[in-house]
């Protein structure tokens, strides 16, 4: 179990982490999602003891390790670019953590074989790390982090450097591995799909602060605020006007909601699956272009000055760019958002 309490980390007078608190239960996978520069990597380095904390505490299995030096924290960290030791072969890399903890040669050999098998690199022990492909390096780094059986395994963008097909395959493998081993994991990424797939719980990090937390399902259902919704990959985040039970865009009625919303200007999320084109609709716009979301075709419609809406259409029913269309939205597809914190 890992607990982080109000962690503050500064570098050269700038706060990289500004009071981050989080908790990962035993056997749980916590996804830490945030854009680059949000402090994700620093958070992992702080938990590992590689950067000094100005304030706050780090507890592992209930023990305060804030003042414990890195090499006695018994955490695992998989670096973004793997940081494999170039002067050691695959087995030497994987055995490193066992060796410096004084494990016997036999123990080392057995454990190295075991973890290499686990990551699908059986028989790779004597290979030089420079001869490995990107995917193989990733697996070696993972095996190295797993070998000493850390209390908490932290992964920093583990799939970031790999191409898409490989990434998807490894994502499934990681998911299986976490479940089989019952590991306590902190998984850092900027990719919302990765985070939503792997995590039991998620935190959204922005400029060194946690802006949103919850399960993947909760976050998908209620992204919360404008910034979080956009970062989670939702399009159709719009500023609209609400009057009684009507949502107005560019002065026309876009949707009628079931219950009454507070009147005034506010931000909403329109789920694409609840939007459709309709010739007689009062909200009029111009088709800007076509795009695919998975295997579903959508048209991007510009309404008025600032707003665009992505609306799903049938493959053979897409109006060409430039044509004028009307848009309506089902009430259930409208989600009210907070202003960004």
């Amino acid at each position: 179990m890992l607990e982080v309490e109000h962690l503050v980390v500064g570098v050269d007078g700038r706060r990289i982490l500004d009071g981050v608190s989080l908790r990962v239960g035993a056997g749980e996978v916590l996804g830490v999602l945030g854009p680059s520069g949000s402090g994700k990597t620093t958070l992992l380095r702080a938990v590992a003891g590689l950067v000094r904390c100005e304030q706050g505490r780090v507890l592992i299995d209930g023990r305060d390790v804030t003042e414990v030096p890195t090499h006695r924290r018994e955490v695992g960290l998989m670096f973004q670019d793997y940081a494999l030791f170039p002067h050691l072969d695959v087995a030497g890399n994987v055995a490193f953590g066992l060796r410096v903890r004084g494990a016997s040669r036999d123990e080392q050999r057995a454990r190295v074989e075991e973890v290499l098998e686990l990551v699908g690199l059986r028989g790779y022990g004597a290979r030089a790390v420079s001869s490995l492909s990107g995917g193989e390096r990733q697996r070696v780094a993972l095996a190295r982090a797993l070998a000493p059986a850390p209390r908490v395994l932290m992964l920093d963008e583990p799939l970031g450097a790999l191409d898409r097909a490989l990434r998807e395959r490894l994502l499934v493998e990681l998911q299986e591995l976490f479940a089989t081993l019952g590991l306590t994991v902190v998984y850092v990424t900027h990719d919302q799909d990765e985070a939503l797939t792997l995590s039991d719980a998620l935190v959204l990090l922005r400029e060194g602060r946690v802006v949103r937390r919850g399960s993947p399902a909760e976050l998908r259902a209620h992204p919360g605020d404008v910034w979080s919704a956009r970062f989670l990959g939702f399009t159709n985040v719009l500023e609209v006007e609400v009057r009684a039970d009507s949502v107005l865009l560019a002065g026309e009625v876009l949707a009628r909601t079931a219950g009454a919303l507070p009147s005034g200007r506010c931000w909403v999320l329109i789920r694409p699956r609840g939007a459709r084109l309709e010739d007689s609709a009062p909200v009029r716009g111009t088709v800007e272009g076509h795009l695919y979301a998975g295997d579903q075709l959508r048209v991007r419609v510009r309404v008025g000055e600032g707003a665009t809406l992505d609306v799903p259409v049938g493959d053979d029913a897409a109006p060409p760019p430039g044509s004028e269309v009307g848009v309506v939205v089902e009430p259930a597809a409208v989600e009210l958002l907070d202003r960004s914190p």
Partner: protein
Amino acid sequence: MSARRLRRALPAAIPLAFLAVFFAYPVTAIVLRGLRPGGAWDLGAFGEVLTDPSLRRVLWFTVWQAAASTVLTVVVGLPAAYCFARFDFAGKRLLWAALIVPFVLPTVVVGAAFLSLVGPRSPVGVDLQGTVWAILLAHVFFNYAVVVRTVGGLWMHLDPHLEEAARVLGASRWQSFWRVTWPLLRPAMAASSSVVFLFSFTSFGVVLILGGARYRTVEVEIYTQTARLLNLDTAAVLALVQLVAVVVVLAAYARYQERRALSQQLRPAEETARRLSGWRDRLLLGANLGVIALLLAAPLAVLVGRSLSTPAGWGFEAYRALGSSRRGSVLFVPPLEAVRNSVLFAGAATLIAVLVGTLASFAIADSGGREARHARWIDTALMIPLGTSAVTVGFGFLIALDEPPLDLRDSVLLIPIAHALVAVPFVIRLLVPALRSIDPELRDAAAVLGASPARVWREIDLPLVGRALLAGAGFAFAVSLGEFGATVFLARSEWPTLPLAIYRFLGQPGPLNFAQAAALSTILMGLTVAAMLLIERVRVARIGEF
């Protein structure tokens, strides 16, 4: 002071103490000798030296020949740097390695080699002894590798796409060189030309042997004033003038590097070289190989030939004579003993240089961010002994370390310490880049995996710089083997070193003496080359500074 800062300060303290006792203190003694001859400040000696017409000639000659040597070396070396950077040809790696040999050869060997080739007994009938050309040629011989390997070493990692992009944008061949490649090569150009300038400026052995009575550098003059004329005060002023000049050049260079620090995307050398195509390429490569053969190989070949020539044809007579102390010989001991002395001194000097150099390198490489400036100045400070010239070091030892509190006059250790002082900068130049090139994340990864700081040092740092360390040791060994300028002040007649023995033999008339000098030079060359071969074998593939 926190424990962390203390841990950082310690590795710096030992090399700085070494520098203080064995460099700053002797140099201070020189300064005091020059500026306070009678116990009171007196700048009169300064004025006398600077207005003496013959000394002014020496100063002027020292400056212009150093400038001329630098320009000449760059002009000859730049095309070769291009060939090594951009062409693939048979034997390239071997030749690249062999280029380093002239640079590490002892000055007396170079002097002897040029004396054999273009001296009074020249096989090609050209006698340049006593002319400035012999000196300039020898300096180019010496420093060719500095320019070719420093500039070529950077050039081979420059992305050829940059020049191609310039060509596509409409630049001519010349424009794309001048506007794209040249600015990118400038750091290496500045580094190598300042090294060449300093080496030529403080040239001693070569000028002593080839310059005759007419041409003397400040360095030679210091030696002459001390050893021959016993004019210690004049020598001290000259040493002071030279020291100031060296510090000015080094400081200018350090400032330049600071302003010019430019990070660029470097490519692996294998990706930037191409096969020869067309007569232009062939001609350029052929011409450069010709220069290498004539300038670098011919003098050494003639030298070896000289050692094997006897009045009755070819033979090992000169070598056989080395085992015994001839009557009327210039040495008190059999010349072969000089070989043993040199190897022993070099071993001790290597030990000291590696110890001091390693600690200094860790101190320099360990400091990042705000301390980086600081580190650059330590780096420069430790370079000063290299530029200051061995003669100043030897002279300083002579006048400072022969009386309490430090009386080492009779200590055999004095020689290896002087040699180590000259060798430390080489160790640092090799080790610091190797240490800096270690990805700090490797240390972090090791710590996360449970390695204590000491363990990280042993398991990560040491193995990764091990080969650079060996290379540094080889360099230190070679430098010590060939050291002449300091040794000439410090070596006692019962402890001659190889270069000293060679110099003595060269000063004697008669073909056998010359053949013996050539034979000892050949042995010295063999030892040096052996040390260098070791370096090349263990050398880490990387972007080098020499």
